């Protein structure tokens, strides 16, 4: 029994190996290259659009310290609505049709809550004493926002972008269910055609892309906020200790 299962696993791995080493599977409109590009492109576009929509109001609300309930509700609602349901619902509106458009809109909608809530929390939770000190130095409200609150909020803002981007990459996979050609297509086709090689190829590529996205934002955060690491090394608690509490991603 154990041996049979073992052979099954090896067999699956060899199917996977066979699939990724066949040149035909890489090229053409349904090849690995084309689908990877489509997957990355829709994820980048969705994350950028979501950031453009979510950042201005969240930073402004955080600056005037109003709208806390909105920030909490928006993230809770985002968590309760299944991403598959949003994509599916959009396809039912004839305006969107199938494929790229409903997937893109769903990704933007899903990416907004973490970016919004984190940016809001980041700006709002800047130490009042620091803000008062900046005012005392004669800074105008705008200067306080740009030179004090925004830099302090940066780690949380990037954390929000990171959560959203990873979620977008993950959810773009579901676009395959509504006929959007992406890495998820290998998974849905693999299940439908009972082709384990294809299925595993899709799974590996999607997982690797999600982990690369996560890693990219970790590096970005290090590059843009070097003072956070210095603080950590010196054993000073990070200002934004509530990073984890403020934002957990929705299901993907």
């Amino acid at each position, binding site marked *: 029994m154990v041996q049979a*299962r073992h052979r*099954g*696993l090896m067999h*699956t791995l060899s199917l996977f190996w066979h699939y990724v080493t066949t040149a035909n599977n890489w090229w053409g409109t349904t090849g690995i290259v084309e689908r990877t590009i489509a997957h990355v492109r829709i994820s980048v576009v969705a994350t950028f659009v979501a950031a453009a929509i979510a950042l201005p109001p969240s930073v402004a609300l955080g600056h005037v310290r109003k709208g806390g309930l909105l920030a909490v509700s928006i993230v*809770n609602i985002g*968590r*309760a*609505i*299944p*991403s*598959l*349901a*949003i994509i*599916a*619902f959009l*396809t*039912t509106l004839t305006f969107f049709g199938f494929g790229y458009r409903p997937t893109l809109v769903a990704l933007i909608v899903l990416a907004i809550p973490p970016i919004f809530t984190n940016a809001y929390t980041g700006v709002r939770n800047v130490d009042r004493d620091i803000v008062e000190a900046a005012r005392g130095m004669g800074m105008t409200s705008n200067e306080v926002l740009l030179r004090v609150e925004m830099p302090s909020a940066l780690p949380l803002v990037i954390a929000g972008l990171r959560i959203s981007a*990873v979620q977008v*990459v*993950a*959810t773009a*996979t*579901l676009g*395959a*269910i*509504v006929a959007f050609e992406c890495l*998820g297509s290998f*998974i*849905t086709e*693999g*299940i439908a055609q009972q082709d*384990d090689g294809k*299925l*595993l190829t*899709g*799974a*590996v590529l*999607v*997982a690797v892309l*999600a*982990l690369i996205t*996560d890693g990219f934002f970790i590096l970005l955060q290090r590059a843009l906020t070097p003072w956070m690491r210095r603080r950590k090394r010196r054993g000073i608690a990070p200002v934004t200790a509530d990073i*984890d*509490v403020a934002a*957990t*991603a*929705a*299901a*993907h």
Partner: protein
Amino acid sequence: MTALLANDANSLVWWSWVRGHTHEIWLATGQHFRLTVVAVLIGFLLSTLLAAVVLRFRWTYGPILSAANILYTIPSLALFGFLIPITHLGFRTAEIGLVSYTLLILTRNIVTGIDGVSVAVKESADGMGFTRWRRFLSVDLRLATPAIIAGVRIASVTTVGLVTITALVGEGGYGVFILDGINRRFTTPTVVGAVCSVALAVTLDVTFVLIERLLTPWSRRGIAA
């Protein structure tokens, strides 16, 4: 509004379809509920074990959370893709995937909750002659309850959403309606699946809020005072 009131296959919700499928809707509710509850329960037991390891051996916190975070980062469809060749379509595959997504949230909240108990409170308990275990059970654990339940709430709501995807693994639930709606380009099942899923998530969330109130009566007294 007219789209809601109209009664044919082209409207947003075709009510006679809903009336004709109440049996299927209840069946899906049972499947969806069972998949969610089993996943959160097993996830909670595993996370309790992990949290116990972390609280005993501090250095394991980083590695355990990183591992849980990697699991959480892997998209559900991909995780099912890894599992299907090994465990095949079915309940087990669905549950392994679902449980692995609860670990990060639950483990982190259990550890943060217990860590958040103030030293002064612990010392008072020690001063009152509590043994280490009794203090843990009747002081630390009780004060950590809100944080732990907050974790269970997030995990449940997240899992309800993920269960819609397990329809692809052939385990039923509301996802079947959503997929059916997509395949037939027919709005009603999709809307029914989505609405039911959100309703189940909200119901579970409210249930846990009530459980929290029952378990932490002092927090209500605090508000009243």
